[in-house]
């Protein structure tokens, strides 16, 4: 009970500090002086930290008098999954969201503390406090994590089985949320710039840094989520165009557009209003995504419980878009720059193409996500918009984006000179062609794969050429380290990461082979060139789980695909795939069925199969590991881009 009251009081303190922050900034703006933003942000953080501490103590000590703990923890839950239990259901996830948002708010306010009297900073702080207050309000009233459990239970339900068998659950949600939360900063500054009318100031360019940070966290979060589902869900895939995945992809797409178009504002002073719109859209899409995943209006494989937060979240979405669009309507035309794009094939022209593609992609994904609801409203029937729709659009768009990546970094600003461009493009073009010829010689015939490799080689060439330029310049200055913080280093490393990731996706999805093999004890077989043998069962039984593992060897390496029943919550039974991964290929083995009297193993029993035999699903996916490597390179690149020199440092 004490913990419940500590948690509740701490949340009320945080909410008070955040509302106080808004009021304080309003008063400060009225009297044209600096407010006390830092103190209010600190107060909010102390409150949220108190609530988080109360929740974690309750989880780690298995205090089932908290309803949330009883529903998401059990006495035998290992420490790591007790800690991650905080974000394994709605209320705790919101608590994590609020924690990250207050941290970001405090960091931003501290970073700009010397400019606290600048109205842009004051307005932005007020918006940050306001958004924080909204999410903390959700925790105080409609989705309180601190609810007393009147039943005196001695055992909790334990976390969802899928959330307690892979440590990635400790990093994937926090990174994803850090990304979502990070987009609050450019949104807050966009509103501030529109209100004060100071669009041409450096504030916009400053925002790129924060957006890159959030973008990097979101990208890593998305890739780790794909990795998690690949390792846990047992279908061998990593992306299913599920509403929850789309919810993360939507802001990622508009943020990617923003990161690129802000460069144009930096160099040419164009796209000021457009950039503000993208910042507002990105944040609004994170709120819309939260609505999709938390309101329960969409059917999703992510079994999030539907909550009563739907109307509040959609209302908040409306407030965000409404404020942004209203301010743009009021101010937009006066703030636009007088000049335009000189030549469609100049660098800025290609940035426009980039933006059209990313925003178009976002609209297509949004339509596909909402379409089942629209269809149901009109026809009353249920439809699913699945992979075929999304893939049919994502594939051609990705091809055009790769082509842009191959050309755009080499094109000059303002003008398009074919001779100069060809001079820069020549080496990578010939290399790409040679690669395609070599692939054809090795027997690769699929046009999609050949096109992808050709364009990817070109894109990598463009990135490497730019990086070489940076290195040469750094060498001339005699300081190698300055290359790391050069303006284009981070971005080009991200491009390289995307190229690696794209090749991983194209190759693994084009050349996947799937087979189901039936093996008796001691038998072996060859599946797509992989020597697979089955050496017997291995039973694991402890307080946490009852598991039947199969001892399988793939080309000499031992794998243990399993079917596991977790104690606690409904005795959920999940299959756990085993993966033998190297840089060339992944072999993905699942325990699909067992013959004879297999009831004890929890696996599906197949009739007509002799006892002791098993059915294995074997999937061989070439180059899949490069998807994760590419994702990590993207993360590294965004970190470099965050640390890049400030714009005012560049001149020096």
């Amino acid at each position: 009970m004490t913990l419940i009251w500590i948690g509740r009081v701490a949340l009320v303190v945080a909410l008070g500090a955040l509302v106080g922050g808004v009021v304080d900034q309003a008063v400060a703006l009225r009297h044209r002086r600096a407010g006390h933003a830092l103190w209010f942000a600190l107060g909010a953080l102390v409150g949220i930290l108190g609530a988080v501490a109360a929740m974690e103590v309750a989880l780690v000590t298995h205090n089932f008098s908290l309803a949330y703990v009883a529903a998401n923890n059990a006495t035998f839950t290992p420490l790591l999954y007790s800690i991650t239990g905080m974000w394994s259901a709605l209320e705790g996830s919101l608590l994590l969201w609020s924690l990250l948002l207050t941290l970001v708010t405090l960091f931003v306010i501290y970073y700009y503390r010397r400019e606290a009297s600048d109205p842009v900073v004051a307005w932005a702080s007020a918006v940050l406090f306001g958004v924080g207050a909204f999410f903390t309000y959700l925790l105080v009233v409609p989705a309180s994590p601190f609810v007393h459990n009147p039943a005196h239970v001695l055992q909790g339900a334990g976390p969802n089985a899928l959330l307690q068998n892979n440590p990635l659950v400790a990093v994937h949600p926090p990174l994803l949320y850090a990304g979502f939360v990070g987009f609050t900063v450019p949104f807050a500054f966009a509103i501030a710039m529109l209100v004060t009318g100071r669009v041409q100031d450096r504030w916009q360019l400053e925002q790129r840094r924060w957006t890159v940070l959030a973008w990097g966290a979101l990208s890593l979060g998305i890739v780790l989520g794909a990795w998690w589902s690949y390792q846990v869900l047992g279908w061998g895939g990593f992306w299913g165009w599920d509403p929850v995945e789309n919810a993360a992809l939507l802001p990622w797409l508009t943020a990617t557009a923003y990161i690129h178009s802000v460069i144009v504002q930096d160099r040419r002073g164009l796209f000021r209003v457009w950039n503000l719109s993208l910042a507002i859209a990105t944040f609004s899409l994170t709120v819309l995504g939260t609505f999709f995943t938390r309101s329960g209006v969409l059917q999703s494989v992510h079994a999030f419980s539907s909550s009563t937060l739907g109307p509040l979240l959609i209302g908040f979405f409306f407030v965000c878009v409404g404020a942004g669009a209203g301010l743009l309507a009021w101010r937009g035309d006066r703030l636009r720059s007088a000049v335009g794009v000189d030549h469609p094939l100049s660098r800025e022209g290609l940035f426009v193409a980039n933006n059209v593609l990313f925003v178009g992609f976002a609209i297509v994904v949004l339509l596909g996500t909402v379409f089942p609801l629209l269809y149901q409203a009109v026809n009353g029937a249920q439809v699913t918009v699945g992979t075929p729709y999304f893939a049919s659009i994502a594939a051609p768009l990705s091809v055009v984006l790769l082509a842009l990546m191959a050309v755009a970094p080499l094109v000059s600003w303002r003008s398009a000179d074919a001779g100069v461009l060809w001079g820069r493009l020549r080496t990578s073009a010939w290399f790409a062609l040679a690669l395609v010829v070599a692939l054809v010689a090795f027997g690769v015939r699929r046009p999609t794969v050949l096109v992808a490799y050709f364009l990817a080689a070109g894109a990598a060439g463009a990135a490497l050429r730019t990086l070489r330029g940076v290195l040469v310049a750094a060498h001339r200055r005699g300081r190698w380290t300055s290359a790391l913080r050069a303006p284009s280093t981070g971005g080009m490393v991200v491009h390289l990461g995307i190229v690696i990731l794209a090749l991983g996706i194209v190759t693994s999805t084009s050349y996947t082979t799937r087979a189901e093999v039936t093996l008796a004890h001691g038998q072996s077989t060859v599946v797509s060139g992989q020597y697979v043998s089955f050496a017997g069962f291995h039973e694991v039984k402890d307080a946490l789980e009852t598991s039947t593992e199969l001892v399988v060897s793939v080309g000499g390496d031992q794998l243990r695909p399993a079917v596991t029943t977790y104690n606690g919550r409904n005795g959920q039974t999940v299959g756990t795939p085993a993966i033998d991964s190297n840089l060339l290929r992944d072999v993905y083995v699942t325990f699909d069925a067992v013959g004879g009297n297999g009831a004890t193993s929890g696996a599906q029993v197949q009739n007509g199969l002799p006892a002791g035999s098993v059915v294995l699903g074997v999937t061989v996916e070439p180059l899949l590991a490069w998807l994760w490597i590419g994702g990590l390179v993207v993360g590294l690149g965004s970190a470099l881009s965050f640390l890049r020199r400030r714009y005012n440092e560049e001149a020096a």
Partner: protein
Amino acid sequence: MRRTITVASLVVLALCVALTVFLGTRRPVGDATTVQSPLLGKFAPSVEGTELDGGHFDLRDDRGDIVVVDFWASWCGPCVAEAPNLSSFAWRERHDKVKVIGVVFDDSVSAARAFQTHYGSLYPSIVDPNGDIANSYGVTSPPTTFIVDGQGRVAATLLGPASTAQLVGAVNRVRR
């Protein structure tokens, strides 16, 4: 002065109002899914036992009525979500030859009683001390709901927290 941005923003604003109104008026989809069960069409296994309130329940006494058998436990989160729906369903259909019976699954009697009191359940629940009833129905995870028709045959199986509308729909299909 050109007014393109103003016009575009107002268009976006209008679209956003439409989207908000549309999404805001959507109802959450029911979480329960109708599943295929080997019991479908077969005679329902026996449900007999002592109710939490002390009475005695036997499924055979209700032949001719539609009986909704719901397996639940106090420790199960989705059961918490489902409890009010079951209550309102039971209340709504109480004069229409429909009975709702809960079966407490893998739980202590005191916790189940506390749950029933806390959520003001409007339907009785019986105790299944050794999990025999749950075993005979093949229940692995609560909440699982079986609809038993007037002839005593299993007509539908719902997995997960059922909404009132889902229960009404399932029962109406059985009546037809």
